[in-house]
């Protein structure tokens, strides 16, 4: 019994350590800058987290399956470009353009899923390949020229409010709630954990492991499309730099959030806290006007420290 409780406490503290990290970093920065805790700044942090955190849901789910996706950033980029292109140069209405972006995201995800799950190509390679392809496609579509001055109607998605809450924040929260629920409470979600925890065992329990893996990639592509659309409308333009390196930020966010990089373990909601942590860090750095060169160094140190603390406690003999 006692073991059960202490184990629970340990699991809890592991799952929510990232939340604690967020709180700590908030406290530190609020001492360092008087502006930091202003409502508008806190709102900013959440707003700036939204698009990457949405991608971190997908990356987090993939990490739980024991895989990774290096093409996420350019999926965000490509879908955003398609979205803008169709509205601007093909006069599509925004809803149709969003639908196409979503389809493209799902197709890119499906390609990754197909290559990894059914062709057995290591995820690192398959998704790196897709990264190049998405990047090339985005450049071809836009001719590397930003597409700006988009219809006013779409601005709501990136810059609108519902009540006092910016739409991207709301979207992020809703998506996290939905996917955290799926991961905890549905068959599909548990299957995702199962293939990460033991792919063979999952297979021998009758789970179609390949299909599950495939669909997680598709979902991840879908989330990239949502992120791409929101980002495009937030910036009122699509450029081939949009979404740049999101895959790494999402990866870092998910891993700071306590999602085990070897798969099968960790709460999806951690990816939200991890992402917020990252944005907060960046926000504070800008606020304190830290030299950009040193920001790189600090980012590396913080990343290593954040993961290292936990890793060090669990280090092995070999």
């Amino acid at each position: 019994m006692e073991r059960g409780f202490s184990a629970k406490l340990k699991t809890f503290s592991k799952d929510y350590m990232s939340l604690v990290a967020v709180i700590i970093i908030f406290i530190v920065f609020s001492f360092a800058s008087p502006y930091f805790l202003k409502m508008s700044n806190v709102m900013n942090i959440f707003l700036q987290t939204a698009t990457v955190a949405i991608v971190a849901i997908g990356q987090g789910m993939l990490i739980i399956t024991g895989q990774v996706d290096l093409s996420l950033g350019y999926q965000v980029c490509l879908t955003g470009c398609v979205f803008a292109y169709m509205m601007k140069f093909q006069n599509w209405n925004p809803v149709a353009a969003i639908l196409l972006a979503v389809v493209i995201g799902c197709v890119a995800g499906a390609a990754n899923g197909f290559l990894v799950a059914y062709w057995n190509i290591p995820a690192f390679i398959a998704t790196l390949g897709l990264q190049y392809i998405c990047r090339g496609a985005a450049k071809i579509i836009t001719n590397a020229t930003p597409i700006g001055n988009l219809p006013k109607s779409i601005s709501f998605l990136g810059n609108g409010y519902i009540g006092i809450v910016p739409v991207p924040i709301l979207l992020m929260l809703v998506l996290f709630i939905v996917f955290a629920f799926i991961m905890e409470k549905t068959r599909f979600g548990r299957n995702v954990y199962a293939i990460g925890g033991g792919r063979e065992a999952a297979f021998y329990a009758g789970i179609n492991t390949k299909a599950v893996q495939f669909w997680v990639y598709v979902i991840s592509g879908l989330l990239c499309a949502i992120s791409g659309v929101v980002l495009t409308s937030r910036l009122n333009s699509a450029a081939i730099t949009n979404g740049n390196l999101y895959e790494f930020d999402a990866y870092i966010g998910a891993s700071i959030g306590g999602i085990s990089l070897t798969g099968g373990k960790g709460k999806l909601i951690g990816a939200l806290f991890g992402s917020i942590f990252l944005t907060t860090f960046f926000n504070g750095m800008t606020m304190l006007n830290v030299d950009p060169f040193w920001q790189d160094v600090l980012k590396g140190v913080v990343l290593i420290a954040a993961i290292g603390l936990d890793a060090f406690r669990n280090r092995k003999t070999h």
Partner: protein
Amino acid sequence: MEKSDIIFQLNHITQEFPGVKALDDVSFSVRRGRIHALVGENGAGKSTLIKVLAGINTHFQGEVFFNGQSFHPKNPNESQQMGISVVHQELKLAETLSVTENMFLGNLMYKGKLVDWKGMRKKAREMLQSLHVELDENALVDTLSVAQKQIVEICKAMNHNCQVLIMDEPSAVLTDRELDILFDVIDRLVKSGVTILYISHKFDEIFQICQDVTVLRDGKHIDTLPIEAVTRPSLINMMVGREMGMEYPKEVIELGEPLLQVEGLGQQGVFGGVDFTLHKGEILGISGLVGAGRTELVKAILGIEHITEGTITYKGEKIVNKNFKEAIQRGFGLVPESRKEQGLVQMFSVKENICMVSMDKVIEGGVIRNSKVKEYAGEYVKKLRIATPGIDTEVQYLSGGNQQKVVIAKWLMEDCDVIILDEPTRGIDVGAKSEIYGLMTELVKKGKGVIMISSEMPEIIGMCDNVIIMHERRMVGKLEREELSQQKIMSYCT
């Protein structure tokens, strides 16, 4: 150069892990040049003790004397340097490397500073030949069967010029032919003065080769005796600490109508010529030597591998399972041969593993109901007497026998009509074994059909109504309960 008769002296060894006392004040000694058995139930602490001697568990309390000297290895290398060589319970091979290199792992031969590949290959070949093992020394280990890997593991241990060879359940994955090889190896080593520490759950072996025996129970030392001083029942008694029921709780019941008929079944190049009929209420055994193709056979029946010839009739209807899921829907279940990788998601809790197949039963309106999960898991934990701190415990912390019960529980929950068990008692202690046999009996009493693949003759003979024998990937014989005997089965396998 008179040496003491005692090679190992263990004094008050205690090893704690978070929440468990794996060894609790264990003291005993091992005599030089003897074959010393170490027995106990799953989780008794046998492997933990071995790991103390091997330099893997380094944070123990108490003291070990080796050849009269205080001995506390800080890593496996130190232990090896002292002349202790270990065959661990789980295979410890570099899967991607060749047989030769694995036989010399951590202990390569050198010519000057450079690896002497030629010399190693030659020595490996000679060694395999002298043991009459047909194995290509250049083959990669990941292409070998489990038994072949175990042979490589044994050769690896032999390659150290050791004073003590410790073997942790080396025979669990071996069939009789390799077992003879193992005994041959032990015999040679003992003749050259090596001391053997031998762990096994198989009493036949222990009584056949061992000279002393130490019994552990719940981490505590129960007794160390010469083998002559114990009998099988008394040994079991010491291990489990209570009266055991029958070892093979077999109840012969009247067979019902045919459930599964297999005719001329085969997969090109893998196995072929399999015919059998499984009736309701029947336990059908599939016996044979390693590499007989039994696992492939059941995989093909279950749609995990495809079929190229023959037919399967299930409940009077010709079927082909397109994939495993379809087989499950039809009422098949499989307890796979590798408990650790295939049987369980190690980092999942007991309850999650139990409910993994029958998730439909705990889902309402698309949502998993935790109350139902608890209810079902609790029920099966109780029914199967699974010893676990709680249903939320991750299965990796359970003993082997209890893990296997969890695997069985998940198929019981699915309520399948045909349940196939592939080496269900591998590495499981005598108490848990008999409970698993009991579960099989209960299943057939309910009119289910059970197929058991096993390389252990005694349990085949003890539990099965009918037995088919496979050899070199073909079915070579069929025996009924009355005709079953070790000799008869073996006669098919030559």
